[in-house]
């Protein structure tokens, strides 16, 4: 396994467990692992600028933030509303990563 994909579904800014999960992602990225945080359902709110400092730290440590397009659209969020470094992707992207034998996926 060379990559880690952490999928967060609750808004981590309103969920202590969710924030801890983002911290896990930060530790992994800071240690040099290729780490992506996939935000789905209410977790897409964490991709708003200023929503959660840990997400900014994660990006600063080399992490990648992916935002589920459908979840964001459903919640009236456009890519322009989100962090510039967050990338909006389709569910097919998650499926592809899940099927990649080099990617370990953890869902929270």
């Amino acid at each position, binding site marked *: 396994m060379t990559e880690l994909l952490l999928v967060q*579904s*609750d808004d981590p800014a309103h969920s202590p467990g969710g924030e801890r999960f983002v911290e896990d992602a930060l530790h992994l990225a800071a240690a040099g692992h290729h780490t992506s945080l996939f935000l*789905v*359902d*209410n977790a897409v709110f964490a991709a708003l600028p200023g929503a959660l400092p840990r997400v900014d730290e994660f990006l600063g440590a080399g992490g990648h933030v992916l935002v*589920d397009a*459908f*979840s964001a659209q*459903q919640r009236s969020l456009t890519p322009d509303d989100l962090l510039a470094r967050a990338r909006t992707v*389709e*569910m*097919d992207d*998650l*499926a*592809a990563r*899940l*099927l990649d*034998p080099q990617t370990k*996926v953890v*869902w929270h």
Partner: protein
Amino acid sequence: MAPVPRTDVLLAVFGGPHRTDLVSTTFRLAHALLDRGATLQVWTCGDATGLTRRSLGDSKPRNVVDWTRDHPSTAAVARGLIADHPGRLHWYVCRFCSDERGMGDQIPEVRRRPPFTFHEHTQAAGKALTLGVC
């Protein structure tokens, strides 16, 4: 008991409906995986076992302001996905959880399995994820 088929992915759905978008996301992810040609097991536990209970029928109760429009039940949606991908989507329901919740009567397209077989099912999948909590 029928042998467990080998699949690319197992999605173990522990969270229940009507609380978050977990169920919708599960269906969307299942569709995306199957669209890519993957083979998939879905295993439901807890309140998620109710997604495929027979008493749901094919449709939700009618919308009084849109009387003639059909709104499929989750059981119908699951049944449709299974029918659309014969031999590639295998849906299992935890027998203990469904019995505990009085939801043991399930649609014929899914199979109830005892909880002690869960590990066997995860071992038959290339990757196994747990979605939501009971």
